[in-house]
C-alpha cells in the first residue's frame, strides 16, 4: 500500500533536477519512473509494490546530495539499483514469492469467480469509456480483438497490412488505445465504488 512520504521539498527538487534539467519534463519522468518501478516490483512478486516504490524514493532522497554530483549515466539506473537492493532485503525478511506448489490449479479461470455486481459495473464502465475514445479507436480495438487463438494471428497480420504498418507497430498502437481505455474504466469503477 502506498504511504505518505515525508520527503523534504528541497530534496524532492534535487531529485527532479537530477531526473531532468527541465522541471516539467522532470515531473513527467518522475511519475513514469514511479509507475515503472511499481510494475517491476509486481513482476518480482513483491507483496507491497507501491509501498516499496515509496521506499526507493525515500532512500534516494536521503543520498541524493552525495550521489548526484559524481554519478555518471541515467539516474533511473540508480533508482533501479536501489530497487534491487530492496527486493533482496525483502526476500530475506519475508516470503514474497508465491510458491507454484501453493497454487490450486483445479480452479477455472480466475476471473470467472468474481461476483455479478463487479461484472455489471465493469460492463457499464466499458460501454461508457468506449463512447469516449472515439469511433476510429473503438473500431480498431474491436477489429484487433475480434478473433481468438490461432485465427487471431492471421487476422492481426492482415489488419496490420490494411493499415500499412508492421504487426509490432499495430500491437503498440492498440496497446496505447487500450491503456487509455483501461485507465478510463479504472477511473469509472473508482467513482462507482466511492458512490456506494
Amino acid at each position: 500500500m502506498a504511504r505518505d512520504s515525508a520527503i523534504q521539498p528541497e530534496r524532492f527538487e534535487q531529485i527532479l533536477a537530477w531526473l531532468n534539467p527541465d522541471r516539467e519534463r522532470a515531473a513527467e519522468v518522475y511519475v513514469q519512473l514511479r509507475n515503472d518501478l511499481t510494475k517491476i516490483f509486481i513482476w518480482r512478486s513483491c507483496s507491497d509494490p507501491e509501498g516499496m516504490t515509496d521506499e526507493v524514493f525515500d532512500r534516494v532522497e536521503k543520498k541524493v546530495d552525495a550521489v548526484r554530483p559524481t554519478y555518471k549515466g541515467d539516474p533511473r539506473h540508480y533508482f533501479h539499483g536501489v530497487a534491487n537492493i530492496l527486493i533482496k532485503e525483502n526476500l530475506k525478511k519475508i516470503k514474497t514469492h508465491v510458491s507454484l506448489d501453493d497454487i490450486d490449479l483445479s480452479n477455472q479461470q480466475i476471473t470467472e469467480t468474481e461476483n455479478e455486481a463487479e461484472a455489471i459495473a465493469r460492463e457499464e464502465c466499458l460501454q461508457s469509456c468506449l463512447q469516449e475514445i472515439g469511433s476510429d479507436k473503438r473500431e480498431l480495438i474491436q477489429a484487433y480483438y475480434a478473433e481468438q487463438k490461432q485465427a487471431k494471428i492471421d487476422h492481426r497480420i492482415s489488419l496490420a497490412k490494411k493499415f500499412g504498418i508492421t504487426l509490432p507497430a499495430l500491437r503498440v498502437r492498440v496497446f496505447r488505445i487500450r491503456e487509455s481505455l483501461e485507465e478510463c474504466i479504472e477511473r469509472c469503477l473508482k467513482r462507482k465504488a466511492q458512490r456506494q
Partner: protein
Amino acid sequence: MKEETVSDALLRAFLLGKVDDDERQRIERLFLTDSQERERVLSAEQDLIEDYLEDSLTTEDKQRFIALYAQTPEQRRKLGITKSIKDWAIREVTSPEASGAEVSVWARLRAKSWVKPVFVIPIAVAAMIAIVIALVWLNNREQNRRHLAIEQELAQLNTPSSLREIPPQMVSKDLSPAAVRGAEKETEVRKADDVRIFELRLPWVQRDRYSSYQAQIKRLGEDESYTIRSLQGEDDGRYAVRLRIPARLLNRGQYLIRLSGINADGTSGPLEEYLFTVND
C-alpha cells in the same frame, strides 16, 4: 551506449519469470529508460494476458502466470477489464442481425394489403424514409442550433478581453490533470444560486507550450460535448489555461475536460484530461 533490443520470445520468458538474473536486469533497465522497449514489454504482457484468458498457455506457464498476475484483487480486476474488452469485441462481431421481428411485421402488412405485393414494399419504404428523414432533420436542426448557441456563448466568455475582467458572482477552482495519478481528490464544483460563472484553472504540465489551446468539455455518460477554441496559456507561477463556464450549463454529475495544444499548422497536439464533479 544503447542496449540491444529484446526478442518477443525473450520478453515472454521475462514476463513469466523464466530468465536468469542478468537477462532480467537488462530488460528491466531497458524498460525504465527506453520508451519504445517499454511499450513492447507492456504489449507483450497484454498478449500474455490474452493467451491466459483464452486458456492457450501450457500448464507450466499458466501456473507461473497465476502466481505473478492473478494473486491480488487489483491484478484480478485488471484481468477482468481485459476480459471485458475482448468479450465486447467478439460480441460485436458475432451478434446476429436483429431484423427478424421487422420482417414478420412487413409480411403481415403485405398479406393484408390490396395493393400488389410488388408495390407494397417500395411505397412503404419510401414513406418511412421520408418520415424518418423529416423527423431527424427537424430534431438535428434544433439540436445544432442550441449547440452552436452554447459554443458561441462559451467562446465569448473566454476571449482574452473577457478573461481580463472579473465578473461578479464568479467562483474559481483549480483542477488537476487526470494523468497525475494519486495527486489529489477529484475537484468538486458546488452550484449555488449566487454563482453565475465558474472559472476553472487547468494546469498544463507538459513540457511543450503552445500559442493556443482548445478545450472540449462533456458530461460523462452523455454524447454531447462543447469545444472552446483559441484559449491562451498564462504563467503566474504555474502555467495554466483558464476556462470559464456559465453555471447554468453545468448539471449535477461528473465532467471531463480535454485540453489540447494547437500546433502552428492548426493540428491538435498533446492532450491533458481533467475531471471534476458538479454538485448542488
